[in-house]
């Protein structure tokens, strides 16, 4: 999922201060899974903001609503009846959702309530870790299913570097050395000979090196 974390309340208050009626929008997908912007978090944030504004002597109306997803225009369209009742929108979705709202409601100020972080997976409840950086040319088949771009601090394709210590990355004991993980996988799969293959320099164009990316499916797009 795409992970995110709520921005500090102070920052959010600065965004909503000039307005009287806010529409606070959650998203039922990724940010729900990482407990950052789902229905419950919308409730928590609305309550917190309401109290903070009340304390500051300001009466603000915060309407709560959670969409199935904010990254599809069909769902965003559901907001049309609610939009006139709001002076500004604050979205708890990832950056994709926030932008979708801004593009649809061109004359409404739109603010992000969360900092979008990374594409990751749950390690266990409450812990999410980075797994993918969307390089556009997946090489997981060659590395036993462990990504050296997302999980190696230096994105080495022919690692490990000389700082790998007891399976941990030189930058922190809390970070596993991706190449140790890859090596362990190659061993488990009896593919250790593959380690000798040199991975050539990566073409970063599919990774965004040639500008913002788009996928067009001609069979699906009208």
């Amino acid at each position, binding site marked *: 999922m795409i992970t995110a974390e709520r921005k*500090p*309340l*102070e920052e959010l208050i600065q965004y909503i201060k000039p307005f009287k009626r806010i529409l606070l929008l959650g998203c039922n997908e990724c940010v729900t899974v990482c407990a950052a912007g789902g229905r*419950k978090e919308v409730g928590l944030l609305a*309550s917190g903001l309401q*109290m*903070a504004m*009340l*304390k500051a*002597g300001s009466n603000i109306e915060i309407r709560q609503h959670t969409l199935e997803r904010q990254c599809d225009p069909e769902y965003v369209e559901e907001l049309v009846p609610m939009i006139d009742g709001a002076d500004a929108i604050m979205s708890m979705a990832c950056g994709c959702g926030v932008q979708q709202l801004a593009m649809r409601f061109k004359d409404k100020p739109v603010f992000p309530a969360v900092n979008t972080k990374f594409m990751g997976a749950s390690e266990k409840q409450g812990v999410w870790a980075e797994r993918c950086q969307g390089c556009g040319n997946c090489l997981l088949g060659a590395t036993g299913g462990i990504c050296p771009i997302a999980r190696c601090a230096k994105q080495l394709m022919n690692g490990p570097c000389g700082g790998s210590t007891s399976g941990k990355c030189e930058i922190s004991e809390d970070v596993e050395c991706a190449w140790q993980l890859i090596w362990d996988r190659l061993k488990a799969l009896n593919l250790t000979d593959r380690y000798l293959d040199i991975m050539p320099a990566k073409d970063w164009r599919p990774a965004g090196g040639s500008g913002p990316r788009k996928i067009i499916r001609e069979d699906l797009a009208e």
Partner: protein
Amino acid sequence: MENFEPVIVAFCCHYCAYTAADMAGSQRLPYPTNVKIIRIPCSGKIDALHLVKAFEKGADGVYVAGCLEGDCHFKNGNTKAARRVAYVKQYLEEIGIEGERLEMVNMSAGMGDRFAQTATEMTEKIRKLGPSPIRAAMAV
């Protein structure tokens, strides 16, 4: 606020804290009427949203009372509750409410005196702190 009487909400787990409250009652142990008890099946049932909403509705103090460590009827509901209480305490500070208005306490079913003592202590602590800034703002 003149003659400030704190409003304290106590989320009490059925198996320990609520039973302790009953015990206090049957032992005729006095405790302040400021404390409004809400019975929940386990302290682990408590969600951050319940705690925050209590303050939004004007509570001056809130506590979650669960079983003693290691004795939770549902294994570890009380440890989950403790983590959530800690999380909300920080959130309260962000909002501008003193974190000490929210506490986690543990007691066993037989500790009627502890229930009464906790209720009394919490009420007095909040009385000294004064009305919650939200309640104060609502009064204006």
